[in-house]
């Protein structure tokens, strides 16, 4: 019974950690816009937290460069298992328009495993919410 309680709580209230790793701010602001009254992901029980040790979902926006790849890996490793990574925006997927720039390593999946990819430059809040919900379905399969 206790196990079931934990499983339910995890599913009903996933906590979210957002990390901007080299994005142009477009996607970050859209992630923040998801939390505000018009889109309101808090109705799914999602809370934006600042501490990686509290988080279940990891939203990453932007390209990876050599300096922030360390921070990204560090945050990922601090998160408790099970965890879901959602990469947001063209830059997070592949490097986008910046993939040829000299200081860009590439997409988020070069550094950490990614579960859900959300395309768009920048990704719209609807797409981000859809990505988060898809991530939650996968989370459900992992938990059970």
């Amino acid at each position, binding site marked *: 019974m206790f196990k079931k309680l934990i499983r339910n709580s995890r599913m009903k209230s996933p906590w979210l950690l*957002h*990390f*901007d*790793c*080299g*994005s*142009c*701010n*477009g*996607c*970050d*602001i*859209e*992630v*923040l*816009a998801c939390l*505000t*009254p*018009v889109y309101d992901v808090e109705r799914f029980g999602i809370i934006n*937290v*600042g501490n*990686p040790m509290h988080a279940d979902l990891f939203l990453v926006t*932007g*390209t990876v*460069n050599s*300096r*922030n790849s360390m*921070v990204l890996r560090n*945050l990922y490793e601090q998160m408790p298992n099970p965890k879901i990574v959602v990469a947001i925006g063209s830059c997070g997927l592949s490097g*986008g*328009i*910046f993939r*040829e*720039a*000299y*200081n*860009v390593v590439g997409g988020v999946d070069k550094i950490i495993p990614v579960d859900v990819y959300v395309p768009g*430059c*920048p990704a*719209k809040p609807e797409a981000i919410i859809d990505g988060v919900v898809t991530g939650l379905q996968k989370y459900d399969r992992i938990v059970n």
Partner: protein
Amino acid sequence: MSKTIIPFGPQHPVLPEPLHLKLTVEDEVVTEVIPALGFVHRGLEKLSEIRDFHQMVQVVERVCGICSVIHAMCYCHGIEEMMGIEVPPRAKFLRVIWSELHRMQSHLLWLGLFADSFGFEALFMQFWKIREKVMDISESTTGNRVIVSVNVVGGVRRDLNSEQISWILTLLKEIEQEISALKKTLLTDYTVTKRTVGKGVLTKHQAYGIGTVGPVLRGSGVVQDTRTLGYAAFNELNFEPVVESDGDCYARTKVRFRETLQSIDLIRQAMSKIPNGEINVKVKGKPQGEVVSRVEQPRGELLYYIKADGNKNLDRLRIRTPTFANIPAILTMLPGMYLSDVPVIVLSIDPCISCTER
């Protein structure tokens, strides 16, 4: 009390962006600040070697997702000046309308984030709710919410018809009413004044000497607004730079709040004066020469240095963004302040790190 070094960032709940500060604190008081950058550095100025000068418009828009129109506008002004292209008057007015819409959404975004930085979450939600209306205007007129990509070398890509203009005007009226309703809370509430008045003071002399730009400079009493140069169609519109004299976080908040309302006024003026005609001209030839182009971003003066030698690729593109000029101000504002005031003061310059590092 011995000295302690406290790292602030790069992943910090107050700032969505990775800014890293090394704060030396004595007891609770900050004595020294060293900023560390490089978490967002992409080196996109160098992309001008592989993209041609038309494609670079899309690249410079992605210097910063919040004020993309204004970046593209500054770049296009530079190239147009170099190639001697005269932009049609309707395109100039359209540029003003979109750039002022972007200024509005950027200031509303900042006002919300700033309220969040001292824990006033209700105000944050209110401002972002209003901002969504501005985003709706962007989406319905250009097809995208944030990076709208309307500017091209030689004009603009999209036109506004009279239906859209009247719809925008009704929506602007609603937005103006909603913003004015929040004025009392933002400017007189105890929570706000307690956390902002007298914090992070920059005198007129200091602000000018450090070379700060935009609301930080105008909040310290210096009358300087690059829009008064009259680029695009600003020479045909009536406005006065918004200036406050106190130089603290509260003065900067007031400047940005009044500028939001000023932008609504400017859009109305532009819409009433907009002439009919073409929206872009055909571009022939390749750019050649050296040019410095400046416009006013929400965060301050933006400067592009462009050098071209007659190829389709530019020789050198240098972008000086307003936050780059404002970061040295943190070094003057923070010493002597309490550690708990650091997030508020850092946010009061409206840092945009992806602009700074490009």
